[in-house]
């Protein structure tokens, strides 16, 4: 099963494939030189993947399977060794500045600037886009409020809990209004209860905002809760299973997908 022809579990989900392609991997491979300088190792091998507008794609796989490398190539932080990556028809590495304001990233840890208040951290992406102060503060306040942080705008990160800091990081990404959202295990640093609550809010916000999102996760549950499509990778990053889900997949469908994912991951 390849990304060119993902398994479609629901007729409605098929509509996603008819929308424009936002992210395209065309025969992409990535090799790294080994730290000892002897030879290279393959992190990503011959990946073809189209992510369409509005799709919420969960990238699932074991540790070290190349998920983060794929993520970094979409973000433009790494260049492919061969093949081509396109984000909205731009090469994200070579045309780095062309995608300013079009990609927002939520990292595994909050990565808030400790010298900035919650408000200024949430407004950070907009500041990089030269949005005037009043407008960026208005957007940041809106998203902080949406994420339940009203009244904490002037708090510095050290005064916030881990969950609150991650909410500020999510607000920072949403405030940019970027059409593409990249999330690298955004909830993995949180405790189970906070993560479960935030996961639902996060999925709702992504769907509501109509963003295209690619998110890395180790959790099958998280992939099925947030994703409208699940791509399972095997080491080195090679697509082993690719499935589109319905907007509200039935329990039987979820169980079947979960079983198949488990089969691939335990192969």
């Amino acid at each position, binding site marked *: 099963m390849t990304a060119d022809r993902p398994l479609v579990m629901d007729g409605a989900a098929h509509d996603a494939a008819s929308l424009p392609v936002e992210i395209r991997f065309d025969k992409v491979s990535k090799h790294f030189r080994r730290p000892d300088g002897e030879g290279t190792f393959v992190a990503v091998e011959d990946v073809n993947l189209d992510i369409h507008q509005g799709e919420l794609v969960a990238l699932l796989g074991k540790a070290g399977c190349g998920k983060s490398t794929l993520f970094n190539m979409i973000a433009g932080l790494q260049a492919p060794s061969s093949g081509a990556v396109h984000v909205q028809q731009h090469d994200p590495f070579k045309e780095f500045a062309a995608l*300013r*304001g079009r990609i927002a*990233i939520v*990292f595994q*840890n909050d990565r808030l600037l400790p*010298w*900035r208040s919650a408000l200024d951290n949430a407004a950070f992406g907009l500041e*990089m886009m030269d949005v005037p102060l009043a407008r960026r503060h208005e957007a940041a306040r809106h998203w902080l409020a949406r994420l339940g942080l009203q009244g904490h705008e002037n708090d510095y990160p*050290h005064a916030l809990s881990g969950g609150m800091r991650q909410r500020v990081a999510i607000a920072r990404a949403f405030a940019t209004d970027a059409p593409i959202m990249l999330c690298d295990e955004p909830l993995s640093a949180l405790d189970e209860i906070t993560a479960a609550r935030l996961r639902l809010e996060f999925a709702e916000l992504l769907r509501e905002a109509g963003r295209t999102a690619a998110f890395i996760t180790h959790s099958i549950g998280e992939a099925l809760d947030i994703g409208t499509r699940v791509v399972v990778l095997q080491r080195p990053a090679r697509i082993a299973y690719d499935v589109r889900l319905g907007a509200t997949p039935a329990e039987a469908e979820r169980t079947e997908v979960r079983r198949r994912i488990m089969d691939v991951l335990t192969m």
Partner: protein
Amino acid sequence: MFGQVLTTVARTLGGLAGAFVVGAILAALMGRSALVARLLSPMLTFLQGIPALSWVVFAVIWFRGVETRIFFIMLFTTLPAFAFQLLDSYRSISKDLAEMVVSFRPRRWQMLRVLVWPAVLPGVLTSWKANLGNASRVVVVAELVGATGGVGYELLQQQLFDMAGAMAWTLQLVLFVLVVQWVISAIETFSLRYRGMSERSL
């Protein structure tokens, strides 16, 4: 009398500012290029090993102007410490934060303004505090040779065992160092107010 102290103050701060600017440029070059760091680092270590008195002698031999001599001495006695301390601050910038900032595709000046400057500021303030004490000692030695004003020159006039005069000039200089240290600490307290404090001290 106070004019002499101000002269010494101006020489100290001028020398420190010059060393800071040159040190910051060298630190930036070393931070961005491993090759430059390999080249400059041993040279700065070598300069650091030269005693202040040797710089005084070199300055007298190489330069005629009093202010040029003093500036030269101040520059070279404090430059290596500034360069190393600023380089260390630059290298301590969190890779995670740098990656986060880069992901928003900032321009170079934005990167400097929003990440590099705030991240190195604690190191900058510490380097000023550390170098100030050293500079206030060196400037007095520099003023002993050829200067016609300043605390060092005045101290030289007290060499015929005028203890009260020597103490008065020394205390004025120490007072100046304390005032500047207080100003730097006030800037530090204000600009680093974001840092969390534990209720129990370390």
